[in-house]
């Protein structure tokens, strides 16, 4: 197992270096960084001096090495647009995105698994059919449309919930949370549901399909034949066996939720990293774009690693050294 983790970490490092290379290429090939930094009345000498000070005349590898080293320490330079260190900007915005993403991932997983199990056990029940229909809608509607429809219904027509922003936030050290104020919680509801809806239907359909498969296995039938109650068979036997493939998808989806919160954040003007990124694209603010790219890649890599380790925890067949298997 240790050699397995070692191997995965090694692969992750290669992935991160590749992403860093792409991010670095942004600086070199999307516009001239000096031009982006200085005004029109800067003299050629001043430009050359700045170029020298920033080390832009060094060779490609030296520059990339410097970039990678700084990136590893969380330094991505200074935003052109905000004139502040990118790391500071991201640290400021990250709590908003992470809170939104984790809450909606939690909603999606909890409700998705529950509905998946329900529809698998009561295949022909009216409620199952209703859930399947709703899930079809959830999976086919694009996120921005769901968001706009929710705003229209709950924000404009019913006027129950705020339609933009994060509400009041409380500062806990460097972390700003909206979970401790009523207006913060209210503001979270609509974007969280919007972001969760697609993942929820995906998880529900996956759990349902896997569960139906597991319910047909011999060990479930044997469990019934020795008088175990349905509750035990459904949740202790079947659901656990269902989770093995589902974990992978949930892990990958969590990464996707964080990375693709962009649309939701834009629709709801949520002050998170996604909104920061969209603004950066508009202003060609390359340090932010590069930092965002590297960070999202890091999140995916870390989640994948955790998922792989979770496999070992859930499935004893992987945990035990194969040499010890009796024949």
């Amino acid at each position, binding site marked *: 197992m240790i*050699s397995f983790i070692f191997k995965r970490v090694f692969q992750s490092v290669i992935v991160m270096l590749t992403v860093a290379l792409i991010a670095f290429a942004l600086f070199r090939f999307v516009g001239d960084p000096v031009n982006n930094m200085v005004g029109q009345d800067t003299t050629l000498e001043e430009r050359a001096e700045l170029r020298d000070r920033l080390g832009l005349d060094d060779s490609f590898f030296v520059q990339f090495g410097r970039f990678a080293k700084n990136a590893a320490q969380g330094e991505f330079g200074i935003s052109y647009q905000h004139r502040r260190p990118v790391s500071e900007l991201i640290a400021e915005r990250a709590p908003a995105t992470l809170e939104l993403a984790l809450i909606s991932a939690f909603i999606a997983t909890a409700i998705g698994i529950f509905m998946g199990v329900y529809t698998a056990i009561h295949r022909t029940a009216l409620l199952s059919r209703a859930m399947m229909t709703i899930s079809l809608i959830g999976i086919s509607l694009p996120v921005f449309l769901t968001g706009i429809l929710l705003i229209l219904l709950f924000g404009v027509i019913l006027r129950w919930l705020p339609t933009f922003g994060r509400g009041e936030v409380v500062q806990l050290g460097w972390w700003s949370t909206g979970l401790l104020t009523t207006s913060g919680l209210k503001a979270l509801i609509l974007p969280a549901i919007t972001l969760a809806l697609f993942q929820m239907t995906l998880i529900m359909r996956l759990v349902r399909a896997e569960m139906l498969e597991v319910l047909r*296995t*011999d*060990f479930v*039938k*044997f*469990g*019934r*034949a*020795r*008088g*175990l*109650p349905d509750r*035990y068979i459904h949740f*202790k*036997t079947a659901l*656990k*066996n269902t989770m*093995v493939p589902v974990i992978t998808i949930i892990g990958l989806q969590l990464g996707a939720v964080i990375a693709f919160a962009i649309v939701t954040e834009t629709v709801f003007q949520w002050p998170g990293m996604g909104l920061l990124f969209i603004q950066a694209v508009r202003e060609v603010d390359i340090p932010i774009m590069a930092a965002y790219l590297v960070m999202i890649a890091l999140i995916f890599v870390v989640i994948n690693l955790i998922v792989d380790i979770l496999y070992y925890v*859930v*499935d*004893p*067949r992987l945990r*035990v050294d*194969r*040499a*010890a*298997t*009796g*024949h």
Partner: protein
Amino acid sequence: MTLLTIKGMRVEFPSRRGHVTAVQDLTLEVAPGEILGVVGESGAGKSTIGNAIIGLLEPPGEMTAGEITLKGDRIDTLDDVQKRAVRGSRIGMIFQDPLTSLDPLQTVETQLIDTIRENLGVSQSEASDRAVALLDAVGIPDPAIRIKQYPHQFSGGMRQRVVIALALCGEPELIIADEPTTALDVSVQAQILDLMKGLCRDRNVGMILITHDMGVIAETADRVAVMYRGRVVETGTTEQIINAPTHEYTQSLISAVPPPGRRLARFPLVTYIEDAQERPEGLDLATHWLGQSRDYGAASETLLDIENLHMRFVTRASIFPSKRLFIDAVKDVSLSIKSGEVFGIVGESGSGKSTIARMVTGIYKPTSGSIRFAGQEITGLSRQDAAPMRRQMQMIFQDPFSSLNSRMRVRDIIAEPIHFHGLAASNDEAQKIVGDLLDVVGLGAQAAQKFPHEFSGGQRQRISIARALATRPRFLVCDEPTSALDVSIQAQVLNLLKDLQQELNLTMMFISHDLPVIRQMCDRVGVMRNGQMLEVAETETLFTNPQHEYTKHLLDLMPKFTGFGAQAAE
């Protein structure tokens, strides 16, 4: 007093095309401590009886008539909650495949304790004590340690013991065992059957033993019910059914079991089965393949010569050589097969017999050693150079369901090797060959238009044989060709193989775990265990005068069932 009584049971599966009756007019009785064998071929409705008794019929199947009483209590009319109370604590069930019967993600301990607590309502610590005692009772060594392990850490036979322990958790009065030893090796089968017999006797538990294997019935059951197409055609004591069966079906079923004690020219067929078919007489095989004969030279004395063959599989890869783990599937095996001979390889699962077949046909590359076919070394050949060799040897696989592509028509399946090796000038010519081949294997040329799922297991195996013959081979490798088939179908397929072998002067490598079948089919036999060839001898010599200890052991374990035909002949 009887334990279980079934009166006039009828089970129906409603479908769009009308009701399918799986079981009808079934009347059975089981006494405490008695083992009732239910025997029949696939589709006879044996398993349906077990599921109906325990109340787990697959929907939409339902019991539409009759009654089931357990010690005087009607159990077929109970509601779901009451039925669940019966399951486990009054009736236990054992399934066929021990590899899939246990939850892979829970320890044996959890599964046992939860079942005991659910059925008996005892405390955690008492359940734990009972669980260890049960494992001990079913013959698992070091039960206190083994109980902490997961199912995948047990071998097949040990897992079936765990399954039996689980079935005993609720202290049932009746156990239904549905093909409990079909997935196991002969030696393990004997142990499990002994165990089940002992448990029934000691605990005074009644048992319904469902099986297709007459040998198992003969060794285990007190009484037998013979089923055919959903009806019991005959019931009686085991002795009476085996020695003096009265019903025609029972007679032919028993005579179709290959006798282990002597060699027959042909396998007796189960004539009672309507669709049993022999291939048309008077086909001249020389004119087949459109009159073309084989285009390779006369066979030399020794067709296949294997020397010091070795196959090693890596089970754990590592960058450190000392940490790598290997399994030597075949160790230093040498054998030679003469032209026109049928060479049998017998051994239990994991003995390496299939690995040899796969190396000979080029599916696996041997780690070391040499394979010479018709005098030419074939181990190091490139794909292109091997093609003419491959054409001369063909393989027939065990599972007739997965060895045919279900998306292709039979005519394309059989024509595929003809086209691949460029043996026919045109597609029309290939299709004529296909028609001829289907006639040869007794299916008839009209079968070419159909898809594999339209055929039964035995018919599919005939298609496999036709496909193997399509390239005009002179060497056939048969890897357990009849293990997945019912005994009556097995007899037909083996007869066909025997006829073809003689008429086409084929050389065969015949792999099986079934000693009686080996005895009927083969001229010489090699016995394998753990990748080693222990003994090679003429078939009759091997059976009458085995040299190696292991061979003697295997012969001892062979079901002592001699069969009605043998008795009648004496």
